[in-house]
Each structure stands twice: as structure tokens, then as C-alpha cells.
């Protein structure tokens, strides 16, 4: 029951949920939530592979770095969102199109 497959299924569900959150939501923060989900899905995959495929510690370390990067990304992204909100008074993703070609 607690095999590799179950973990991979869980992580796939998380990933798919993340993708849907990213594509379906129009609120930037909600999109960030989706990103977190995707990151977590990959981290879970790493740890799961470590457990089932080889017993080296590198998978753990990789997921640790993913956590670190997620934290940094959350901090910076939210700061940008706040700044964006201060300037534009909106968090609608389609309003952030200043960089269009």
C-alpha cells in the first residue's frame, strides 16, 4: 500500500492541481499557491525516489533546496505582488501585461 506508486500518484495529483491553479485562477496570489503545490509535488517525488530507488541522501538535499527556493520565491513574489497592488490597486493577472511586446 505504501509503495512508490502511491506517492507518485499523490505527487501527480498535487502537480495537476498546481497546473490547474496556475491556469485557471486569475488572482496572482492564487497562482502562487499553485506554484507552491507544483514545487511540493516535485519535492515529494525526490524524497520518494530516495526512499524507493536508492538510499542516498541527495534526494533529501534536493528537496531541501526546493524548499529554500520556494521560500525565497514566495518572499520575492509576494513582495512584487504587494508592490504591484500598491501601484495598480489590483491583483488581476491580466492587468500585469506591461511587458507585452
Amino acid at each position, binding site marked *: *500500500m*505504501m*509503495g*512508490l506508486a*502511491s506517492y507518485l500518484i*499523490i505527487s*501527480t495529483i*498535487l*502537480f*495537476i*492541481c498546481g*497546473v*490547474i*491553479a496556475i*491556469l*485557471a*485562477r*486569475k*488572482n*496572482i*496570489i*492564487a497562482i*502562487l*499557491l*499553485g506554484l*507552491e503545490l507544483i514545487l*511540493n509535488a516535485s519535492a*515529494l517525488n525526490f*524524497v*520518494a525516489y*530516495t*526512499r*524507493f530507488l536508492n*538510499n542516498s*541522501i*541527495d534526494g*533529501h*538535499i534536493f*528537496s*531541501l533546496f526546493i*524548499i*529554500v*527556493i*520556494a*521560500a*525565497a520565491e*514566495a*518572499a520575492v513574489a*509576494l*513582495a*512584487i*505582488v*504587494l508592490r504591484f497592488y500598491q*501601484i*495598480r*490597486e*489590483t*491583483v*488581476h*493577472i491580466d492587468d500585469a501585461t506591461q511587458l507585452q511586446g
Partner: protein
Amino acid sequence: MFDLTLFFISAVLTVIGAIMVITTKDLMHACIYLLASFLGMAGLYLTLGADFVAAIQLLVYVGGVVILMVFAVMLTGGPHAQKQNKFGMIKTALMGNIRTYTIGGLTAVVVLLMMVKLYISIFKNYTAGELPNYLPTVERIGKSLITDHVLAFEISSVLLLGALIGAAIIARPRKNRIN
């Protein structure tokens, strides 16, 4: 048995949390569901013998990221803000509609196919064997971090510092711009 119980509780928490994140209409609730999902993830890590990762998951996501998210949600509107800003834009964006969910769903199906294809190759080569015992990982991670992965470790520390300063600078209100 204890493990199995923990696995079930965690898995359910994770999956339900994740699904609720994409289905709920309230952003604040989504955050709380995300928290649940993260807690579940920590539990899953524990069942995988990754005690340190679990603890860090708890520390970073529960103590840090979710609170940040919640803050951000609160600062960008909150529950009872006006719906429109001075440019006439929608202030608190919709949490999606049929069209976006359709696009998302279709893409998700494609991604799912892709992942399935990936997993097939994994499972072809994978044979379930004797699983190793749970061993404390803290020391091994620590040694590994300052020997094999020291460069990545240092770079990530610089990254965090940069993120800290960057976030502080970006988010700081510029006094002369306030009307």
C-alpha cells in the same frame, strides 16, 4: 500499522487540501487548505523516513510561507474591500470561471499524459525490494551539505540573502509616490 495510519491521514490531508485549493472560491480558505496540504506533506515525508525534511517543511511552509500568503491576501484586498479600483479594474480578481477551468483542465490532461508516460519508464525498471530501515538523516544531511553540496549550500544562502533584501526593497513603500 502506525506508519500506515499516518500515511492514510497524511495522504488524505494532502490530496483533499490540494483539491480544495483549486476548487474553493475564497482565497483565504485556499490558503488554509494549502496549509493542510503542507501538513499532510510533512506527514508523508515522515512516512518516507525523511524526518529532517519533514521538520523543515513544517518550519518553512507552516511558519513562513503560509503566513506570508495570508498576509499578502489580507493586504491585497481582504474580505470586504471595494470591488473596483480607480482605473475601473477589478480589485480582487475572480477565482476563475468556466473558460479558465476548461483551459486548465485540458492542459492538466496533457500534462497528466506526459507524466504517465514518464512514470511508465520508471515502473518498467522498478522492482519493489526490501525497504531500508528508518535512520536518522540529520547528521548525514548536515555532512553532505558541507562536503558534497557545499557550493549549492552557499549559493542558496546568497540567494536567500538576496531574496530577503530584494523583498524588503521591493515591498517598501516609496513615500514620494504616494498621492
